[in-house]
């Protein structure tokens, strides 16, 4: 009890300094949690586009970005005919812009695509899709920012398109996107006869391995991956994830430096006190544990505060209409645990030098210290 009080007492003595250190760790944890959660949410959303009523995505082998993938329409037709396949939907991704919006995601799809089937139609009817080359269906949010209603002609890229439907989906990318007939998209993006991917639903999920092997055998330039497999291996996702952790990691390093500074000050300002503890029988280890204990308290309070702050921030972000569907604030226990452990590790690492210094203090010299 007294040992704990020795730890807490010193933190209470310098409340401002302690608060700044706790805030440093808290901001780092909140930043890491927010950045990683947002990016993982975004990755999840993007993966959701591909896995809409399908479990396998087929795309061009060795492309760094799906926007550069070219899958021949003939391949889509042949795969759709395989007995193990329930349905295979070719999808062409493109980026277009309008006057006020530099980036609008465009989906070239067939009339039978699951996205149209599963979405909630706010206006228009699914059966009207792909009747004319200039028909488009807008996601709800795209309709809002393009200020478009059913029947309007909206300028998208270098063309004007006729809005024949507005639909709502849970996916932010889709909700802010434009759906156009596959053939129109191929023309629009100068990708005649190709799609970016084929999303495939199997009759039996157990056939996934066989399906992938067949893709490899029949189309050497293509690759089929199950959704989870794709999410893990897609280079863009990996880069984004690595970036998120790196940014969060930098925050934690800064927080750790703050803790180190606090602990160094903590040791330097009570050298005499540490000497007295030594004279009263404290071992080097007990002195070290005391310093690490202070650091652990700072890190723990900082980590918990950071978790709360980060969670609150994410919940607030989720309420912003413009971000609807882009941010998934589902708390991931593993992520939270990792972030907390990293914060604790950072705090402990920050106390390494101060603790080593405190443990080396010679009582006889420190007793003369004013």
């Amino acid at each position, binding site marked *: *009890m*007294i*040992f704990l*009080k*020795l730890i807490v*007492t*010193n933190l*209470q*003595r310098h409340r401002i300094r302690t608060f700044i250190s706790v805030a440093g760790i808290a901001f780092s944890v909140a930043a890491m949690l927010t950045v990683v959660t947002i990016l993982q949410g975004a990755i999840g959303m993007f993966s959701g586009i591909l896995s809409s009523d399908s479990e396998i995505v087929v795309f061009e082998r060795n492309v760094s970005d799906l926007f550069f993938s070219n899958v021949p329409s003939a391949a889509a037709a042949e795969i759709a005919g395989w007995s193990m396949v329930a349905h295979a939907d070719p999808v062409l991704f493109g980026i277009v812009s309008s006057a006020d919006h530099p980036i609008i995601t465009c989906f070239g799809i067939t009339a039978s695509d699951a996205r149209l089937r599963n979405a909630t139609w706010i206006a228009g009817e699914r059966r009207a899709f792909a009747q004319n080359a200039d028909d488009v269906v807008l996601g709800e949010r795209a309709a809002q920012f393009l200020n478009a209603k059913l029947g309007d002609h909206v300028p998208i890229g270098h063309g004007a398109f006729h809005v024949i439907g507005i639909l709502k989906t849970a996916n932010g990318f889709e909700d802010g996107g434009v759906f156009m007939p596959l053939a129109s998209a191929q023309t629009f993006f100068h990708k005649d006869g190709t799609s970016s991917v084929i999303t495939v639903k199997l009759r039996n999920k157990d056939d996934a391995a066989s399906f992938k092997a067949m893709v490899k055998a029949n189309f050497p330039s293509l690759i089929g991956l199950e959704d989870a497999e794709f999410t893990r291996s897609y280079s863009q996702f990996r880069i984004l994830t690595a970036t998120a952790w790196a940014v969060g990691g930098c925050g934690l390093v800064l927080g750790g430096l703050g803790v180190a500074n606090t602990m160094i000050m903590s040791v330097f300002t009570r050298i*005499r*006190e540490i000497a*007295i*503890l*030594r*004279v*009263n*029988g*404290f*071992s080097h280890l*007990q002195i070290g544990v005391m310093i690490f204990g202070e650091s652990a308290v700072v890190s723990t309070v900082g980590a918990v505060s950071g978790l709360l702050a980060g969670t609150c921030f994410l919940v607030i972000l989720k309420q912003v209409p413009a971000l609807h569907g882009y941010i998934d604030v589902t708390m991931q226990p593993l992520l939270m645990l990792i972030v907390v452990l990293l914060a604790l590790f950072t705090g402990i690492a920050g106390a390494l030098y101060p603790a080593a210094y405190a443990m080396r203090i*010679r*009582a*006889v010299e420190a*007793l003369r210290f004013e």
Partner: protein
Amino acid sequence: MSLPAKTPNQSRRIVLHAQDVWKSYDTGAITVLKGANLEAVEGQSVALCGPSGCGKSTLLHLFGGLDWVDRGHVSVNGAKIDRHRNLLRLLRHEVGFVFQLHNLIPDLTLAENCLIPTVAAGVDRTTALARLKQLTDRTGLTHRLDQRIQKLSGGERQRTALCRALMNKPKILLADEPTGSLDEATSTTVFNLLLDLVATEGITLVMATHDRSLAERCDRLLEMHDGRIHESQQTQ
């Protein structure tokens, strides 16, 4: 050369022994002890007098294992003090220190300060609290147990430091100017208490002091000068 006093103490066990002790600082630039010798038997009170810088504190530090001799040897309870000695056992159970400045932790209460040595030594709380009560009853501090150090008077602080030094029942008390920062009346009160405690607990006291009137009340009065210890005529 200082030998055990020629008194009935002679038959008692030698608990502190310094033989031809040399100690210098600043890589030899300042030599404080130049072949100092001292023996103290159990239960004896020994006063070390001498001018500032003559090596009184240094000798106490050497007996407490806080510093090492350059030459010669120091032993406590028959065991040589060197880098191989279990100094934690020495500091936790064999010697207690009282300094001129009370050296208490200001944010802790009187009781918490006193309990620090028991925390270090892993003494169970019940035993520690019983010992605390015993000592604070003796020193008249029981009613101040929950007071923070800032609220205590100088005499109370020094009595607290004395209690802390005796918590783990050491058989040797090393006191470095224990009344040096107190006024005369308080100084006498604290010193009476100190002598009373060491007498009733059978503790060997080695006390560095400038106050000759206090020093003369000890069993032995040793003079330190020129890096050596000389038995005072008063205790010969």
